[in-house]
Structures are given as C-alpha cells and as structure tokens.
C-alpha cells in the first residue's frame, strides 16, 4: 500500500514537470517561432530577425535543453522515491 501511495505521488510530480516543460516547448516553437514571429522580427540579434532566428535556430536549442532538464529532474526524483532501476 505504501509503495502504492508513493507511486501516485511520484506520478503527480512527474505530470507537473511534464506540463511545465511541454508549456515551454509549446511557447518556444509555436509561440515564438510562429504566432509572434512577425512582432519578433522587428528586433534583431546580429544579422538575424529575432522571430526567424527562433524558428530556425533558437527553438531547436531550447528543445535540447528541455530534454536534458527533464533527464536531470527525473533522475533526482527517482532517487528521492527510491525508484531507480
């Protein structure tokens, strides 16, 4: 039973991590790269219009960071609950 309760707690925290990270995933691609692209293109970084940069470069960097953040968070969580495999 105890195992059961902690499994549910673990799952809840996992779902919280997932929603936060997927929210960032959504904003960085569909938000900055598509919805707001015209507005962002009024700004430049170096020779890049900002929205264009997010669509062709920035979003991809953010995706990589997101996965490794998840790996870090989940490894920590596994340890906390003793669920390491």
């Amino acid at each position: 039973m105890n195992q059961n309760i902690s499994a549910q707690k673990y799952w809840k925290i996992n779902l919280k991590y997932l929603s936060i990270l997927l929210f960032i995933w959504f904003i960085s691609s569909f938000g900055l790269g598509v919805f707001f692209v015209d507005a962002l293109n009024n700004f430049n970084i170096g020779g890049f219009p900002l929205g264009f940069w997010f669509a062709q470069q920035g979003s991809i960097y953010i995706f990589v960071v997101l996965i490794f953040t998840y790996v870090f968070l989940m490894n920590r969580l596994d340890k906390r609950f003793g669920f390491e495999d």
Partner: protein
Amino acid sequence: MSVQVWTYIIVGITFALYIGIAIWSKAGSTKDFYVAGGGVSPLANGMATAADWMSAASFISMAGIISFTGYDGSVYLMGWTGGYVLLALLLAPYLRKFGKFTVPDFIGDRYYSDTARIVAVVCALLVSFTYVAGQMRGVGVVFSRFLEVDINTGVIIGMIIVLFYAVLGGMKGITYTQVAQYCVLIFAFMVPAIFISIQMTGNPIPQLGMGDTLNDGSGVYLLEKLNGLSTELGFNEYTEGSKDMIDILAITLALMVGTAGLPHVIVRFFTVKKVKDARKSAGLALLLIAILYTTAPAVAVFARVNLIETVSDKSYDGMPEWFKNWEKTGLLKFEDKNLDGKVQYVADPKINELNVDRDIMVLANPEIANLPAWVIALVAAGCLAAALSTAAGLLLVISASVSHDLIKKIFVPTISEKGELLAARLSAVLAVCVAGYFGINPPGFVAAVVALAFGLAAASLFPAIILGIFYKRMNKEGAVSGMVVGILLMLFYMAKFKLGWLGDTPPASEWWFGISPEGFGSVAMVVNFIVSLTVCRFTAAPPQEVQEIVENIRIPSGVNTPSVNH
C-alpha cells in the same frame, strides 16, 4: 584526382567499414535481432537513433527546401526536432519500462486484443513502406550522379549492402553500423558547411555565419543581402513567410507528433538497458541531430546566395562545369526564353529560364563553392550513409512486424526461437526486395507520400500509445476505433487532396480549415483522440491486470529486460 576517383575511394572505405561491423556484430538470438540484446549504451543508442532518423530527406532535401522557401521551411526544422521532446517526455521511458520488442507489441498487450495488435501492425507497415522506398531512390540518385552508374544498378548495390548487415546482424548489426554512419554523415555535412561559412562570412561556425556580415568588408549582413537579392528577383523576402499561419502550425504539429509516432524511431528505445538510459539517449539523439538541423538553415542561405550570384543574369556559355553536369541529370533545366544567351532566374514563371530541383542544392553546394574534389566525394558518402541507415532501421521494423507481431504472436505462437529468428531474417530479405522494387520503379506517388508518412503515424499510433500510458481507463474499443478512424481519415484526405485518386485533385482553396495534406495529420490526430475517448466512455473499463500494467510502466524501478519466452 577527379571527383569520381575520390568518390570510389571514400564510398568504398565506408562500405567496407559497414560490412566489417556487420560481421563483427552477428545476431545470435531473436533478442539480438529485435533489440540488439537490450544492452546498448545511451551514447551509442543516441548516435544510432540520430542516423536512423536522419534520412536522405534530412541530408539532401531539407536544406534545399529551406533554400527555396526561406522562413516557410522552418516547419521541417521545428517539426522534426520538436518531436524528440514528446518522445523523451511522453513515450520513450514508459515504453522501455514496458520492455517488449515492437510498437504493436505494446498496443496488443496494453489493449489486450489481437485486433488492436493487427491494426497497429498495419499502421506500422504502411508508415514504414512509404518511407523506405524514398530512401532506396536516394541511394540510386547518388550512385548515378557521382559514380556514373545506372540508377537501377545503384539501387541494387544499395540493396545488397543493406541486406548484408540487416539480415546478418538484425538490430545489433544495424545499431553499430548506424553509429559509424552517424559519424560519416555528420562529418560529410559539416565539412562543406564550415568551408563555405568561412568563404562567405569569415566565421567558421555556420550557425553563426548565417547571421554574420559578409566577408567582402561591406558590413552588410548575409541575410540582409539575401533578402535584397530575393526581392530584386521578385521572390518573397527570405526571412518572411508566405504560407498561412494555420497551415504552418498544422504542418509543424503533424511532423512533431509523427516523429514521436514513427515505429523505427520508437523501437530504438527498446535497445537500452534502463529507463534512465532511455531518457538520456533521447536527449543525446536530439543533441546529435541538432548539429545537422541547426547547420542546414545556414547551408540553405549560403547555397541560395551562391546560386543567385553564380547564375543570375550571367551568360549561359560561361556557366561553370557543375551547371553542365547537373543539366545532364535533368535536375537542373535552362531554357533561353528571350534568346539573349543569359540566365534569367526570377520568380515570375513566364520569364524565368532556370529550374533547379531542390534536391540538388546540398549535393551541388560544394561544387558551386569550388571546394576540393574530396569534399564533394565526402558529401556523396554522407548521403549514402544517411539513406542506408534509415532504410535499415525501417526494414527491421517491417521484418519484426511480420516475424514477431504476425507470425509469433498471432499465426504460429508455437514457433521456436530458432524458427522465429529465421522468419525474421527471411522477412528482412523480402522487405529489402520490395523496397528495392519501389526504388527502381518508383510509383509516382512515393515522393509525395514520404512526407505524409508522418501524418499517418500521427493519426494512428501516437494517440493510442499516449492514451495507453497516461489514461488508465483507456480500453481496447476506444483505442481500436480511434486508430481506425484516424488512419482512414488521413488516407482519405491524402487520396483526395494529394494523390488525386478520387477524381481531380481539388485546389488549395478547398482544403479543410485551410490545412494542407502535409499538415492534416494534426487534424486526424485530434479526431483519433476524440473518437477514442468518446468510445471509451461508453464501453467497459479494461481488466484489472491491464490497469496494473499501466501503473507498473509509470515507475522506472524493476525494469525487466525483454524476455525470450513471453
């Protein structure tokens, strides 16, 4: 030395390497054959996944498409990388914990039904076959252009190589050849990109060179110059889009979800030891993919500027050698409409005199930039590595679907381990032959359908897997009806708006919600979810032991390696 001699040398060395690895990593059991024994390290799996994933389309076509579409090409960049976030967060760890061999394995067990299993097999086969034919064709094109053999001979040589290591080594052979192929293809993609970046901007990092100032001391940014050149010739500004936003959103989403639903990508995560490793190797895979995917838009810009500057308004007689070489292949066409002896390359199709196939941009790029012969040969070898690694991964999915999901799980459950391994090898041979046949006689719709394979995966497998993990109450009735409705809807839309199988193809103005066939996978996916959830509400909950399976795959501990006798 000439390009051709260099190509023979470099392609010869890489092929010898792949065959050597195949002999070294021969599969001894079905577990070896399906999941490489289940003990692949996260880094090796990351590299293999990256090579598996990056096909001839990523290597050759993508930069070319972006080169001609500018901002609109971003859908491929975001779509084909963003899918890995979904894969790493929503699928890979749980499927690894589940610990079986194939995607239909998961669907069949989770939905306690052979009907679900068969529907999943059909979806997996449909997705994989549409995808693999394009790869064999890519192999043929490279052979014919760089080694000057007949396209068909090229396809057959490619078939023999893949046959050799896929049939002998199964997943184990494929995994380690894919590691080598990743190294070959990324090196081949980066070397010319770095050379050209230095040539044009003085910046050795292409990702930064793309946004840097030109090397000529004018202080003008490269993208600014390209926008100028584009508008001058009547094209859109390169950094501005021309597609409807709704379509951009739909295509990006369909590619992301489709990527996460592709059986040959998912199955790679069955090969690592632990749940932890599955997460990590998804991250590594995306990192390794991102190296190519962030360089491709830079290559696109360089190639576009170089092309315009080399050909626009220049005399036809003075065209460099590569121009004539590609003309011979028919992938580059010049027609002197106003008979002034010069090349007019403009947006208006009435006066435009030059047609460039987008697939040649990456292959011709080193020649356009006057790079040494060995770099051009390297690009050819890289392209072959990209095509062969993806083809091998797909063939394995096809053979496992037949030998494991159909023969072992449904038709002959009593088959011995040895018999199943033999069946797996034979179905791999059969799959290679079918793929080769389509490579030699491409049905007109193959090229169009490859992009749609993502829509099919998004519309069918992705929702069934996600619901299977995240919704305990999901039952077989819901999942099966969702998959069937999703894939049929997607097939119908493709047939009507892309393939013209139902009378004339209607114009874009008649697209539902303004969404193109490429993006329609998103809609079909949503429909799949709605149908699944609705049907599930009105039918019985899954049995207790299935609900326990779901609880079990949600926590990483106690992972069981795929057993032979399940």
